[in-house]
């Protein structure tokens, strides 16, 4: 039961990072790949009408974490207080900018909202990356299962840690570049014309940086949390994750070189999913590692909810997910292929 919920939560996080990761990545590249206003509209159109559906995977992840592992939910949400509110404000600004920028056909209006859109996407990728870094590095969890984390301390990943330190910032940069590269792959597939060509050139460069940063992150993680790699190679899911990472990279480079656009998107999705799966398998069963004392760490087995809650949720959760995907397919059929903003029923004025 505990393993199933751990897997479900990992799956939801993968869905969020792959789907909304494309939206973040494409969004942050908006000014780089789109030079004219029409081209920038094209980037928003490529993100498409389902961006909020993508975001629901994050909302669903949070609430499912509360159902399955309430101790982790409460410890981490309260502990990451300020960082989470920064994340929220960026989500608010980003959501609003997508919605309202399209309403008014005015260059200043558009420019202002596109700027907010780009900046909030960059900040979101950094914050999410830093959050993942914190979970990997561990937090100063006390024996009572609580912690409070300063935004930054002396930037050392050991001892008195903060939300931002050398390790978590490295992870944040890695995630930022990875999502940008993933977004570029998606834009290659969804657009045509100058945006497509610029995205393609950018994607090749970005993926080379991703490959280089992967080595750096691996070395750093080895220093900060060596047992993760031990866990990874002793779990079938760890191997699946590693296959995703390396298979994904191969797909990305062959896809980008051979103009097989879908293959490249598949590759970058597999790469991101692989990172998450390998990480999740590597740290299992420790969900929140304590940097103060190993015995304070919260494992999935300790944190799991008891009683009938998980049994009930195991019945409704699959039903809800299948329905969720059905809705997505119902809408997505109409938006396949390259985007054409002029096909929108309502035009700005």
């Amino acid at each position, binding site marked *: 039961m505990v393993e199933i919920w751990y897997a479900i939560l990992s799956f939801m996080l993968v869905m969020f990072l792959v789907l909304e990761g494309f939206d973040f990545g494409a969004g942050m590249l908006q000014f780089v790949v789109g030079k004219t206003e029409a081209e920038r509209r094209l980037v928003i159109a490529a993100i498409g009408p389902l961006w909020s559906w993508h975001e629901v995977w994050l909302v669903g992840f949070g*609430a499912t974490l509360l159902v399955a592992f*309430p101790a982790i939910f409460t410890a981490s*949400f309260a502990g990451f*207080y300020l960082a989470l509110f920064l994340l929220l*404000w960026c*989500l608010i600004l980003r959501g609003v900018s997508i919605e309202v920028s399209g309403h008014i056909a005015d260059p200043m209006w558009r420019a202002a909202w596109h700027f907010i859109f780009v900046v909030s996407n960059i900040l979101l990728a950094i914050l999410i990356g830093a959050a993942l870094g914190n979970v990997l590095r561990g937090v100063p969890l006390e024996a009572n299962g609580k912690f409070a984390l300063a935004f930054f301390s002396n930037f050392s990943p050991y001892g008195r840690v903060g939300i931002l330190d050398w390790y978590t910032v490295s992870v944040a940069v890695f995630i930022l570049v990875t999502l940008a590269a993933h977004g570029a792959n998606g834009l290659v597939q969804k657009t045509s014309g100058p945006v497509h060509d610029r995205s393609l050139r950018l994607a090749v460069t970005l993926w080379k940086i991703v490959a280089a940063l992967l080595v750096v992150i691996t070395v750093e993680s080895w220093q900060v949390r060596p047992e993760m790699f031990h866990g990874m190679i002793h779990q079938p899911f760890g191997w699946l994750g590693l296959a995703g990472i390396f298979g994904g990279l191969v797909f990305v480079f062959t896809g980008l070189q051979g103009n097989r656009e879908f293959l490249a998107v598949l590759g970058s999705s597999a790469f991101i999913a692989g990172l998450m799966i390998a990480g999740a398998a590597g740290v299992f069963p420790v969900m929140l590692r304590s940097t103060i004392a190993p015995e304070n760490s919260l494992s999935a087995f300790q944190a799991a909810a008891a009683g009938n809650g998980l049994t009930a949720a195991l019945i409704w959760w699959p039903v809800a997910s299948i329905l*969720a995907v059905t809705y997505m397919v119902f809408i997505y059929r*109409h938006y396949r292929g390259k985007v054409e903003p002029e096909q929108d029923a*309502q035009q700005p004025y």
Partner: protein
Amino acid sequence: MEDTLFWSRLQFAFTITYHYLFPQLTMGLAWFIVYFKWRHLRTGQEHFGNAARFWARIFGINFAVGVVTGIPMEFQFGTNWAGFSNFSGNVIGQTLAMEGMFAFFLESAMIGAMVWGEKRLGPRNHFIATVGVALGSWLSGYFILATNAFMQHPVGYTTAPDGTLRLDHISDFLLNPWAIVMFLHNQCAALVTGSFVVTAVGALYVLRGKYPEQASLFLKTGTLAGLIVCLLVAFPTGDRQAKMVARYQPVSLAGMEGLFHGGPNAELEIIGQPNATTGRIDNPIYLPNALSILAFGYSRAKVQGLDAFPADERPPNIELLFYSFHIMAGLGTLFILLMALANLQRWRGRLEKSRGLLWALMLAFPFPYIATTAGWMTAELGRQPWLIFKLFRTSQGVSDVVNGGDVLFTLMGFTGLYFILGVLYLFMIGREIAHGPAAAKLEVSYG
């Protein structure tokens, strides 16, 4: 700790009050759009299609602000109310997660296509998407109300050895009688907001002599639906809600009514100012025996006053609770009168010529927002000092690792951000209303 509790309460109250200004219109307006679209599908008359598109654009803006202000609510369960989430997460986490999984996925998949995708989806699928958004928003409302109902009237749980709550029977928890009654009352209230907004835009267009087809349509549907839901929100749903409070939360009822001292033949205060020092209502205008009759059905029924309860179990803010309840009930009564008058004039064929009434209908739209806010304040203040009624105090629920300064920091952030969001919202909606429905027509016919 005290500071954290105070600022966390203020932050939650502020963010939830602000947030709920938007979903109530979402839930109220959604079925109007479904209706206009359905008429368009049936009759093929373009003014129905234009009406649907016009409201869909407004709906889209409203929905977006509702979504982005809604996400902080879920986060705050963990960030500010970790004690509460730890204590009851096993139970209330169910409905919060179900809301995300069942309702948000439905709404979020359909909303983009509903606002922008009519040409791509074609008439039939676009209609389905519109119904999907409406259903999703109502489903979301139910799950949230079931969560709140657990806080008002906890059922379906057991207590674990470590003192926290565990889910026992999910059906008891989901079908909490409090949830069902409150859902019906709340949804009727959301439809009141929707009706008043549709009516107000119709009245504006009539007064300006613009878009005559849609102006008549908005006035007609708005006032007709408005009268029905104004009646339903009072009776039976509001009445049932009050009876439930009388039965399960007598102390809240005493606070709502400002009944410091209980007894038979309890009077119903229409207006007055509670004076906690003297334990009396100052300058009262009241109906004798009416509270006994309303709560229990006969005039000699004994209604418990605040004095029947220990001091630490009484709602601490009697004054605000009293005013909230009376503002809600008073406005609800005025809404019925206004909508009845509008329907009478419409039936006589004179509504569009009654300029005074049209002015009143146009300016009345903010009041349902005030009434719903006051209604929620009644529910939430009446529950105090409990976070989960009789089980868990509000003061126990707050996150103890977060300090007051952090919360004030984020509260100030929300205040600034939400102020800008509010200005933006009013600007965008005003612009859509000024632009009007005739311009919302689809440029290219279905391929």
